[in-house]
């Protein structure tokens, strides 16, 4: 991930903010339509993952609007999807992003079980046995019930791509028009 934001990008954003702030009040003077009071103002926020600034329109009634992105604000390196290739070993593609650490959940479960609010000793003993292969790295133990599975691609797709032939994983990105 790049450390800083190019000066050019900051200048463009500053310019856009200035245009947004200055132009509307001038528009009535130029004979344009009457602009209603919108109770909004322009701020510049930083993207929570990249730090790249963007223009945001917020309510002017709120003096300190809360950033809508409330997820983990930790900045991660960009993912390399080659790690999804089953032939690629985990050590070959370094990964520094979030990962599900289920050991913490085990501790929580054990704690709750000890105080008697969630399951008994039988549950604690049985559950790791059912999930042990996954903790050790086996995929086979994780046969989840299929959720709401999305439909397949249609001929009406405006845009559709699949991963390259060299890849051993499938990526699809598609879009189709709908009636308004």
């Amino acid at each position: 991930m790049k450390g800083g934001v190019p000066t050019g990008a900051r200048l463009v954003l500053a310019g856009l903010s200035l245009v947004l702030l200055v132009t509307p009040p001038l528009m009535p003077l130029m004979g344009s339509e009457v602009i209603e009071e919108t109770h909004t103002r322009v701020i510049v926020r930083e993207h929570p993952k990249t730090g790249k600034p963007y223009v945001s329109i917020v309510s002017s009634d709120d003096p300190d609007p809360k950033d809508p992105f409330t997820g983990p604000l930790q900045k991660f390196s960009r993912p390399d999807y080659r790690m999804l290739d089953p032939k690629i070993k985990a050590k070959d593609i370094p990964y520094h992003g979030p990962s599900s650490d289920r050991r913490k959940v085990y501790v929580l479960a054990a704690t709750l079980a000890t105080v008697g609010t969630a399951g008994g000793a039988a549950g604690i003993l049985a559950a790791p046995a059912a999930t042990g292969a996954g903790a050790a790295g086996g995929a086979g133990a994780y046969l989840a019930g299929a959720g709401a599975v999305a439909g397949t691609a249609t001929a009406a797709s405006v845009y559709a791509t699949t991963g390259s032939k060299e890849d051993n994983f499938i990526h699809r990105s598609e879009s189709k028009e709908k009636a308004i």
Partner: protein
Amino acid sequence: MVLFLGCARLFGWDIHAPGILSENFTQLVRAVDERVALYLPPELLRYESKDKGSWSADPQTYHVGEAFGPMLVEGFQNGFSEFIFLETRPTPEILARYGIHRLAVVRLKDFGNRVTWKGQSLTLATETAVFDSGMKEIDRFESRGTSASEKIFSKKGGPEVNLNAALENNVRAVVQHLQDVR
């Protein structure tokens, strides 16, 4: 049995995607010269998908919204020369005031999780409504992003990156569709 089931729900995968686009995205999507605004309903940013699992599977929780929101913003930043994010509910007055000729409102439609013995396929479906400066709807389209791979649960970060890829493919579909139908 009841006690066991209560406990089993505590075991499982809590999956947070990195929430950042890959380098591949910037190579595939080039910015076009246009001012476009984006509004995301608050429920999108909070959306989580829970799979309760089965006798042979752990429950899984996918934190979709917390990653998808920032990825959409980054996708629009990369896709349009002038990007404006609306944190307040859009009105014709707001669009007129800020010279916004196209506003995209993205809603989640479906999140699919199919896990087999060999691998996993995730699909995110969204519906995007496009409005002009008078808040008249001028376009509506559905987008899907899918990522399917094998043995991902055996790798550190595998489920997280698989989720990230599905979200990114959806973002790409949305941005490129908007670019195509200008």
